[in-house]
């Protein structure tokens, strides 16, 4: 066993350097901090400006927009969009602009903390890094000794330094990394991947016709799509938008249909029906580039627009018209697949149908269509498959080895089978707030022997941990180069705008320190500085680092490339676009998407749906002072007529009850939602008093939503919970 470990580690020694001290990490002094806090937002003075401009990359959400941090007297006072960062069209959204507050917010984590009271009671004592790290290492070893190394789970989500956390998990010897994908886009990746061999990028900028369902691009901002949706094609493109809510995307759409939740598949199948029946598909494309069209023809026979109308509540006439318009606009027409797809237990098949619809109109790899997602290769080390099997192995047909499935994983931890998991390391993830059925998450955590969370704020998960380690924010770190894929891929990175405040440390440092404490074999994998790591990443192309330092970004080309896959094999088993999936058939799955109706709303109840606002990123930014000012509390949206029927007044407090929880929040009677649905913004109703602005304010959706799951990808299904509403 030990031998195996060292062998694997040796393979991972990608920078063979002698161990050198970590001199680069400085500690912000207290005085500086106080001055920084006092001076934040100092009004700019026209004269005598001694500013430093630092290239970095926004860390407020997944888009990682290019940023120029403006620093004056050691204080970051403004983040400007980096005009070189084409992907974001030179913008920085509200969250990006609020990033300064992630540094100077009094609520940020400042020192390592060790729990002294009961878990969740909020009694902490400040500890030195040495004490905290010694404790974490000792407890991890304890769990490993008592159970196995797989007895420690590693929960994390995306970020430039997540890689080191995952590496640490690997070196520690646990296969149990649980990432955010199964709360987000796992089914999307699966559905599109099964068809295209990868998840393509819709060329929104050049598309003439876009259909969006399950993607609220005006609020759930994705670059460049959110921008191109509005400004692309001179604003002339047509947008058909399906959503149970009248979102800001609906407001921007040419047509909005409050589709019956979960019935998108019926709508898409009916569109395919029309296109196939009326011969509007791209024949030569289908012949040359696809497999399985002949199976599709009989398959869609029953899915007439008239049938779909009864399912999705969009008239047959409109479905026909939209299908014809879509086909006519093709190939510059996309059925936009969105990102988060954790809606229903039919989601993978629904995304499959979306993909098939795109395929049959032949929009693959052309201007305004579905374009292969490109990326710029950076050097990294080989991935080593873990030697234990994952705790949640076999729970979903195509489970991601790296991401796992939160729902299944948690269930198995609670069962204690096939083996116990008693240690929990968390980095930059907040499962208490984000995994449906909060009660279960808390139970899972209650059975842990040890929990350590690394974060920048006292999230609900940190609040229930034993040790909390303060990470430096993205503006205080030198980070690895990071490739962002898309039609025009880009590499970005982060220079530290200031030194870390308080005693916060970059994650790499934290991992290195823990690794040291676990032994030399583990530390070997971390024996490098960030500068060395950056250099290593760009060894094959030093121009990357040069460009990053000069402009904050690196591009290989700045105009979209189309047709790059002509004559190439795709990453599907057949090497072609797969309308019919042999692989699915082999695994006993429907090789072509078959419609099944999702559970309907019982009388007297409402379906709770979740969504996004442009100023919040999942559950992470609601406590940001700038953003909290925009929306200090979430509300329960209920259709005005339903509110009248229940005698509930706008603004009054209501109790929302599901099978797994109950929350109290204010009612917002609105026309903007289907009468059978209710909606609440994510990220409020926190249990952590360390989040002073959202603690106990509004309601927490994770407390209400039941943990349904999509069986193919293991993605959760968040729109299958029904709630009762009563006055509070």
């Amino acid at each position, binding site marked *: 066993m030990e031998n195996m470990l060292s062998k694997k580690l040796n393979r991972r020694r990608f920078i063979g350097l002698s161990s050198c001290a970590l001199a680069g990490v400085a500690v912000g002094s207290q005085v500086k901090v106080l001055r920084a806090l006092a001076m*934040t*937002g*100092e*009004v*700019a*003075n*026209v004269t005598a*400006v001694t500013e430093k401009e630092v290239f970095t990359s926004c860390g407020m959400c997944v888009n990682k927009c290019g940023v120029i941090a403006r620093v004056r007297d050691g204080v970051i*006072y*403004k*983040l*400007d*969009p980096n005009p070189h960062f084409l992907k*974001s*069209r*030179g*913008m*920085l*959204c*509200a*969250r*990006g*602009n*609020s990033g*300064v507050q992630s540094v100077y917010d009094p609520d940020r984590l400042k020192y390592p903390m060790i729990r002294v009271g009961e878990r969740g009671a909020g009694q902490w004592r400040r500890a030195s890094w040495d004490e905290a790290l010694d404790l974490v290492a000792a407890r991890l070893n304890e769990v490993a000794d008592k159970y196995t190394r797989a007895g420690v789970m590693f929960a994390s989500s995306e970020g430039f330094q997540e890689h080191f956390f995952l590496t640490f998990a690997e070196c520690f010897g646990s296969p149990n990394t649980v990432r955010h994908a199964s709360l987000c886009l796992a089914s999307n990746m699966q559905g599109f991947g099964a068809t295209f061999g990868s998840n393509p990028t819709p060329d929104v900028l050049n598309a003439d016709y876009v259909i969006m369902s399950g993607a609220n691009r*005006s*609020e759930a*901002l994705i670059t460049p799509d*959110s*921008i191109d949706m*509005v*400004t692309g094609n001179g*604003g002339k493109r047509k947008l058909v938008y399906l959503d149970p809510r*009248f979102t*800001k995307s*609906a*407001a*921007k759409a040419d047509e*909005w*249909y*409050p589709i019956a939740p979960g019935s998108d598949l019926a709508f898409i199948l009916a569109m395919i029906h029309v296109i196939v029946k009326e011969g509007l598909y791209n024949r030569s494309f289908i012949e040359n580039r696809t497999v399985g069209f002949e199976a599709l023809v009989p398959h869609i026979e029953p899915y007439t627009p008239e049938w779909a109308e009864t399912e999705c509540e969009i008239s047959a006439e409109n479905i026909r018209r939209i299908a014809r318009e879509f086909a006519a606009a093709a190939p510059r027409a996309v059925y936009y697949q969105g990102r988060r797809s954790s809606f229903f237990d039919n989601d993978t098949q629904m995304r499959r149908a979306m993909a098939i619809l795109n395929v049959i109109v032949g929009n693959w790899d052309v201007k305004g269509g579905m374009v292969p997602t490109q990326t710029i290769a950076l050097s990294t080390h080989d991935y080593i498959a873990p030697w234990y099997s994952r705790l949640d192995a076999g729970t979903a047909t195509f489970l991601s080895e790296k991401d796992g499935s939160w729902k299944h994983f948690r269930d198995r931890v609670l069962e204690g089978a096939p083996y116990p998991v008693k240690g929990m390391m968390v980095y930059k993830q907040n499962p208490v707030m984000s995994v449906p059925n909060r009660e279960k998450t808390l139970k899972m955590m209650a059975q842990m022997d040890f929990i350590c969370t690394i974060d920048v704020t006292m999230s609900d998960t940190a609040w229930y941990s034993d040790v909390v380690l303060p990470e430096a924010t993205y503006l205080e770190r030198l980070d690895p180069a990071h490739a962002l894929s898309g039609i025009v891929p880009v590499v970005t990175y982060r220079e530290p705008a200031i030194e870390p405040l308080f005693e916060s440390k970059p994650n790499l440092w934290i991992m290195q320190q823990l690794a040291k404490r676990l032994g030399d074999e583990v530390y070997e994998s971390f024996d490098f500085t960030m500068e060395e790591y950056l250099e290593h990443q760009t060894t094959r192309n030093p121009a990357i680092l040069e460009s990053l330092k000069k402009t904050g970004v690196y591009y290989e080309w700045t105009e979209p490339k189309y047709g790059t896959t002509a004559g190439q094999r795709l990453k599907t088993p057949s090497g072609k676009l797969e309308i019919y999936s042999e692989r699915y058939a082999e695994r006993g799955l429907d090789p072509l998407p078959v419609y099944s109706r999702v559970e309907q709303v019982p009388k007297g109840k409402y379906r709770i749906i979740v969504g996004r606002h*442009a*100023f919040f990123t999942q559950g992470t930014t609601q406590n940001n*002072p*700038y*953003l909290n*000012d*925009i929306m*200090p509390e979430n509300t329960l949206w209920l*259709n*005005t*007529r339903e509110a009248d029927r229940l005698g509930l007044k706008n603004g009054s407090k209501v109790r929302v009850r599901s099978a797994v929880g109950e929350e109290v929040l204010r009612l917002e009677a*609105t*026309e*903007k*939602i*289907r*009468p059978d649905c209710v909606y609440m913004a994510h990220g409020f109703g926190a249990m952590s008093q360390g989040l002073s602005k959202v603690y106990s304010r509004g309601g927490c959706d994770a407390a209400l939503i039941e943990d349904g799951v999509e069986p193919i990808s293991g993605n959760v299904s968040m729109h299958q919970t029904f709630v009762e509403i009563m006055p509070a």
Partner: protein
Amino acid sequence: MKNKRYAIVLDTEKCLDCKACTVACKAENGVPLGRENYRNWVEEDELRGTYPNLGQSSTPGQCMHCGNAPCKRVCPTGATGASPEGIITVNDKKCIGCKYCMTACPYNARYYSEKLEAVDKCTFCQHRLAQGRLPACVETCPTKVRLFGDINDPESEVSKILAKRRSRVQKAEMGTKPYLFYLI
């Protein structure tokens, strides 16, 4: 050669109501935290229709830098003034905090800053202009709703678009002669 006269032209059709402009402005200009403290805003216009036939737009705004500014007229100490380029300014040292300008402004473009101990408002980011930068709200906007420029220069982007497209100003009937132009 005429003086510069700065103006902003807004294409509200593009506005996502994402509040980027508001936060950018707050950070750039050190606007104190608090919901009431802001120099620019995005108003969600009234919802049109009833479910399921709905429509809604949003209107960003800020000080209109009026040519005939009521705020400037009523300020007892001359704290409110205008730059040669037409930017309506507040000299915070002269402001006595009577808030008369706030009652006089038909656009609710001013707020009282506890930090400055004076009334505060949009300056078109004068200090950024001096550095050759665009106002923060103009620069940061995802869909570039705002266009900033010198309206006295016939070749400027703002002049050209105002020539080409119809526009309106807010509360034209007040005679304030605003320099924020909303494209129709």
